[in-house]
């Protein structure tokens, strides 16, 4: 699914964000990426999303070498992924329904398909009743569920969650990660960046720790879901 081979990234200002990263994430895995601020977690996600490119090494996503992807094809690579942001990134003037439908408009989905798919996804994240609300009428947890619905609506094979619980109540964090686990159970690969050790401990999934641009630990926290580590 995702493979990093000797990947290094240094920014134009000389900051070395990642050093010789080697890792493999298989289809259907749930991986927590942990590390302190500035450790290189965001760069790691940016490289997967083709927002940045490595200075050396190779990244393979869904069997495709990202170094061979042309600029005009990047949007199509991104369509295989759904992203959840820490700050939700919901458009205030749009309703919950429109925020989710927006992601489908972007990929050119037919209106009939949008009308069918959006209520289904909103039901999946438990927000069917709030379809007509605007984001400012929702709690933080609900807003993040809208963000998750938007990431899921185009049926991506992988969800990338960039500190999705960073802006919500600790109690609601478990709810969000629970939802991600449920999505993962249905076959979607999840890559979640987090600072919250409570969550990592509680959900017992594979954990990759990045420190100063290097992977310093890659293990299952307590118990390993079957098959999750076979390809390490």
């Amino acid at each position: 699914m995702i493979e990093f081979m000797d990947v290094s990234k240094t920014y134009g200002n000389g900051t070395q964000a990642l050093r010789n990263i080697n890792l493999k994430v298989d289809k259907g895995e749930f991986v927590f990426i942990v590390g302190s601020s500035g450790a290189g977690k965001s760069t790691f996600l940016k490289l997967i999303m083709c927002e940045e490119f490595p200075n050396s090494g190779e990244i393979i996503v869904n069997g495709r070498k990202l170094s061979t992807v042309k600029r005009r094809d990047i949007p199509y690579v991104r369509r295989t992924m759904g992203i959840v942001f820490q700050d939700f990134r919901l458009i205030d003037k749009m309703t919950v329904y429109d925020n989710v439908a927006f992601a489908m408009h972007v990929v050119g989905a037919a209106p009939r398909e949008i009308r069918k798919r959006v209520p289904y996804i909103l039901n999946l994240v438990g927000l069917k009743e709030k379809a007509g609300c605007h984001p400012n009428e929702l709690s933080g947890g609900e807003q993040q569920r809208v963000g998750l619905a938007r990431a899921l609506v185009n049926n991506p094979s992988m969800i990338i969650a960039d500190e999705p619980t960073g802006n919500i109540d600790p109690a609601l964090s478990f709810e969000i990660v629970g939802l991600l686990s449920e999505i993962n159970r249905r076959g979607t690969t999840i890559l979640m960046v987090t600072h919250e050790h409570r969550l990592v401990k509680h959900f017992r999934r594979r954990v990759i720790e990045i420190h100063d641009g290097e992977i310093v630990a890659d293990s299952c926290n307590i118990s390993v879901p079957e098959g999750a580590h076979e390809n390490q």
Partner: protein
Amino acid sequence: MKISSAKYLIKEGVRNIWINRMMSFASIGVLVSCLLLTGAAILFSLNINTAMQKLEQDNSVTVYMKDGLPTLKSIQVGEEIKKLDNVESCEFVPKAEALESIMKSMGDDGTIFNSLVGSENPLNDVFKVSLADLSKYKETAKQIGSLDGVYKVRDYSDIAAKLTSLDRLVTTAGFWIVLILSLVSLFIISNTIRVTMFSRRLEISVMKSVGATDGFVRLPFMVEGIIIGVFSGVLSSGLLALAYNKILQNITNIVPFFHPIGLGSIFAMIVLCFILAGALFGAVGGGISIGKYLRREGGDFIGW
């Protein structure tokens, strides 16, 4: 691009104009000024060219007789003109007839010249002389001018030279004014679009994160620019038609012998050109802004 996507993006473009109406209004104002000036310069030039063509087609010279010259003497000069080789015809227009003709062409307003009828008539007796061979134009005009009793020979080359220099002046000034205003229009349109773009940075980042192509992100902004341009084109051609017709009415009242071109024959072309020019300006202005943005920071969404 699918039809449903195109519909959605066009709707977005229209919505942006309304949300950002003050800047849109400013863009339309500048673009209308630019197109109006361009149109005015074109119409002016067309009128001058038509007038020159008319003059060139008219192979005659107007011979003014000296002030106070007895009509009998004038007729004698006319006989001498007729004897010249290159003269085909020579028509005498007495000053009384010329004044009457002017008064007639002015309709009711012509009565203001009533006091000039008779001995107070300031006009000269005139001969309208047609030439057989235009290549000997200058030579014949010189021969006529040398005849006793002739005050002045006016040929079209004098007027043509003046018209040409006026046309050149208007064309040059018009070119620079239009060029500067075009750049100002582009600048204002691209800034209008940029304001919209910054207010929609969140949407753009979300679009990019879910896999929008640059074309998809760009289209609503270009639609916004094109709508501003098309609207300016329609408005400016309407205003130009109104202003031109108003000026025509006044000019033909003041200068009855001036025959400006009618707008009817070229109006459709003006509207089409204005709309196309407006749409092009709008699309380029919108394209510049969003292109620049997408190349720089528009692709960032993680850690944005």
